[in-house]
């Protein structure tokens, strides 16, 4: 008996040490999973499957600014506090998903209809976590022939736009404000703290094409003077600063040379 307890205890200790050293390895999302957001403010409480939102389909059609500034989606899952009533009233998802708004030849299907107490196949298109729902658009087919990238969705979105394979909408009538022309700020250098690591060249132009100004300033980047904000890869990996987007939707942080561009002399 004592021997059995000793062996069991030893076994658990070994397993504990093994996990303590390596931790639980985080699985890298597959290309079609990268940028997936699960929204569950009220779904489970209402006995409905939580919403699964895949960024890759929407970012191919719309700029980040259109959804996150004009429509007003928050930058973190659940922070918008969306209810079905909001969609029915024509806001958030309901801004486009009202059955009538046209994008080219296609109308966006109607979300959250007024019928009470009835879930149907249309609801499943979004409320799909844990369900075996056949998507209308297959990821592989959708991005076939597009410029490839090593990480994230496996798509070089920047090149895809340059080659006009995607032409994201940046304006919706009745929703977006007619704004003055964007004045692009200069690129600048962020000096790397690690010796031998190339400095970062930050391109305002590349970011503002997709985001505008108010998406980043001041919510994500508060510092008004160069050098005031102390960036670190730890904080970025925790989801601050660049990590707000580059942990989840934009090209991943593992792709170091996309940002650390300046030649080391």
């Amino acid at each position, binding site marked *: 008996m004592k021997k059995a307890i000793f062996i069991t205890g030893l076994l658990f200790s070994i397993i504990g040490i093994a996990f303590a050293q390596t931790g639980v390895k985080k699985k890298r999302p597959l290309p079609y999973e990268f940028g997936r957001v699960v929204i569950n403010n009220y779904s489970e409480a209402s006995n409905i499957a939580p919403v699964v939102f895949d960024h890759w389909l929407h970012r191919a059609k719309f700029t980040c600014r259109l959804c996150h*500034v*004009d429509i*007003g989606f*928050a930058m973190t899952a659940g922070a*918008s*506090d969306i*209810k079905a*009533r*909001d969609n029915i*009233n024509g*806001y*958030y998802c309901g801004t486009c998903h009202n059955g009538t708004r046209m994008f080219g030849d296609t109308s966006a299907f109607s979300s959250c209809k007024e019928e009470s107490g009835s879930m149907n196949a249309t609801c499943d298109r979004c409320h799909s976590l844990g369900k075996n729902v056949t998507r209308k658009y297959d990821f592989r087919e959708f991005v076939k022939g597009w410029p490839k990238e090593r990480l994230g969705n496996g798509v070089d979105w920047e090149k895809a736009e340059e080659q006009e394979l995607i032409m994201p909408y940046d304006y919706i009538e009745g929703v977006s*404000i*007619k*704004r*003055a*022309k*964007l*004045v692009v*700020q200069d690129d600048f250098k962020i000096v790397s703290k690690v010796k031998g690591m190339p400095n970062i060249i930050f391109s305002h132009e590349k970011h503002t094409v997709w985001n*505008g*100004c*108010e*998406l980043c*300033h*001041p*919510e994500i980047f*508060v510092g*008004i*003077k160069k050098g005031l904000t102390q960036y670190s890869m730890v904080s970025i990996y925790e989801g601050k600063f660049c990590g707000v987007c580059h942990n989840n939707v934009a090209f991943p942080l593992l792709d170091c040379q996309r940002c650390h561009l300046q030649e080391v002399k």
Partner: protein
Amino acid sequence: MKNIARLFFIGFLLFNFWGRGFIVGGSLNTVYAQEQGDWKQEYAEICAKTQNAMELSVAELKDRIERADKLQERINKLEGPLAETEKKVFTKRLKMCRELYSFALEYKEHKE
């Protein structure tokens, strides 16, 4: 003839004290609706310059921030079936543009 005159007089009285109320009330509803719609127009005007916020003068930035704060008070007082949704949505949208102007203002004042 007298009865016609009496009926006409009664009808005239009813119109003045009751019918006009409907018309005036209807006009007030129109004014109310216009005011309700005007705040969205005000939001669009305030936030129309976010793309060139850094080019605006200090005075213009301060003006837009002040207008945004006043508009937020109006948004907080919205009523009606869409009020809850619109308060949530427009508070977020207005906050983004107001904070950007504040950011640009702080940058300019710091530079000076």
